[in-house]
């Protein structure tokens, strides 16, 4: 087994070797500009882009013309929110989103608020799920957009998007879904979901960094956007700029592989994830699951280890690449806003660790992780005053802490 072990697949995934192989010719001999209409170099590049676009559209049950290439999911989210609001602001000035969205949605929403747009941030239940009834109740005659993610990047919880899409359709409100963590991992069907716009990116599904897409519905309804980048009118005028053909080809190849392998791959990854969860929870007491027990991404495990601080824990398992909801290094010293929105106490939010399993995770790596986590948690609990107090029967909630 090679160290360090990579268990942070929500953050990014390695590029699949088959993807890299497909991309390589487009850096050198097939270097044409896909927008060059009058010579063979351009035609060759355009043909490759068309193929990739078809694969991507097919994976999400869309039409190839509905795929707008961007630099990644952050740009797609920005284009969806700002572009829709700018286009439809005469119709209304209200959008609905959720408190646990990724910053790529929250921050554009906050930026729109500064321009006078009203934003409703819906709460979630203790599993991290938004209630479709809350969405329905938040809609007013001024609502122009609903933006709810498919699956959480922190806790993996999968939202009831089909129900939300139906409500949006009934009320005539556009629905954008940030599906960055879901596409390529779980089946995604824009028709069944009833989404009008959907963001996703290549590097979360074993493709290259620097390329993403925004699905923009063309029929029933035909969604229009004000572009953020003006230029040559590429991508139906919604996103100008010469397409990075090698990246587009890599994105297409990565999606093609996901389509072929998702059904078997997700079963294998979920099996490893369950093994990890059972192993950790069997070896250690007072470990709490964050997120939905069943409706969550197959590769996700987010748990809080009571009485130990997340960053210290990461330091104890530095041969394993992980992420923590503790924000000990951030300027604000605030723990994860996603976990806080679930009602997880600040103490347990500081104690949270996110495991992200993926295509290249092995059973050996999972067993190694269980063993290392167990040792590190025990090491830290032995020097934790909270663990000692809890052992002595002190109710930590009743202690008057000298808050600093």
């Amino acid at each position, binding site marked *: 087994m090679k160290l360090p072990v990579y268990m942070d697949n929500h953050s990014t995934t390695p590029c699949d070797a088959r993807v890299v192989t497909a991309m390589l010719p487009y850096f050198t001999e097939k270097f044409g500009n896909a927008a060059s209409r009058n010579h063979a170099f351009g035609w060759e590049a355009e043909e490759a882009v068309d193929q990739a676009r078809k694969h991507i559209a097919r994976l999400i049950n869309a039409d190839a013309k509905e795929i707008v290439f961007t630099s990644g999911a952050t740009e797609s989210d920005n284009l969806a929110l700002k572009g829709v609001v700018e286009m439809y602001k005469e119709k209304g000035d209200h959008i609905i989103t959720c408190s646990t969205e990724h910053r790529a949605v929250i921050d554009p929403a906050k930026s729109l608020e500064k321009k006078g747009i009203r934003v409703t941030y819906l709460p979630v239940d203790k599993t991290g799920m938004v209630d479709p009834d809350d969405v329905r109740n938040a809609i007013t005659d001024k609502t122009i957009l609903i933006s709810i993610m498919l699956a959480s990047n922190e806790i993996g919880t999968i939202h009831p998007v089909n129900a939300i899409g139906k409500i949006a359709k009934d009320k005539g409100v556009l629905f954008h879904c940030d599906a960055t963590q879901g596409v390529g991992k779980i089946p995604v069907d824009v028709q069944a979901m009833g989404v009008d716009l959907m963001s996703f990116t290549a590097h979360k599904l074993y493709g290259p960094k620097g390329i993403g897409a925004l699905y923009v519905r063309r029929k029933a309804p035909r969604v229009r956007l004000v572009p953020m980048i003006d230029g040559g009118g590429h991508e139906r005028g919604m996103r100008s700029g010469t397409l990075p053909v090698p990246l587009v080809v890599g994105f297409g190849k990565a999606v093609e592989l996901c389509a072929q392998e998702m059904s078997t791959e997700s079963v294998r990854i979920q099996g490893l994830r369950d093994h990890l969860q059972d192993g950790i929870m069997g070896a250690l007491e007072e470990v709490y699951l964050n997120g939905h027990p069943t409706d969550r991404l197959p590769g996700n495990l987010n748990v809080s280890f009571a009485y130990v601080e997340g*960053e*210290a824990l990461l330091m104890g398992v530095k041969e394993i690449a992980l992420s923590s909801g503790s924000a000990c290094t951030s300027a604000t010293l605030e723990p994860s806003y996603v976990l806080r929105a679930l009602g997880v106490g600040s103490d347990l939010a500081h104690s949270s660790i996110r495991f992200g399993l993926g295509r290249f995770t092995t059973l050996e790596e999972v067993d190694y992780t269980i063993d290392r986590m167990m040792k590190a948690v025990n090491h830290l609990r032995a020097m*934790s*005053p909270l663990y000692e107090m809890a052992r002595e029967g002190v109710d930590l909630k009743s202690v008057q802490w000298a808050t*600093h």
Partner: protein
Amino acid sequence: MAYSDKVIDHYNNPRNVGSFKKEEEGVGTGIVGAPECGDVMKLQIKVEQDTIVDARFKTFGCGSAIASSSLATEWLKGKTVHEAGAIKNTDIVQELNLPPVKIHCSVLAEDAIKAALNDYQKKADPASETEKTATSAGV
């Protein structure tokens, strides 16, 4: 984030982890921080004839918080109560090479030292406690 070798050493081999009985004679206990803030330090000293003969800590917090309190126990041993009161958080920052974002860990360690000394003095001489505080405030 990269930790200094000294922080890593204290994390892997923490000095003086443990607890004294709070009610034991000569023992001063300081508990500072809060679980909600992500760090809690418990620091204890054992004093004999005005000299700190032993010290213990337990810390819930990041690696820098653990290292700061571990280092504090090392420094406390052998010092007089008066000398211990002179330990500054900046000394800890310098010794452990803490980055700006981790300075609060050293502040917490200084607070813990002060709280332990205060507790010891209160126990040793409950009557003079208010007087002493007033004097030090005057200085």
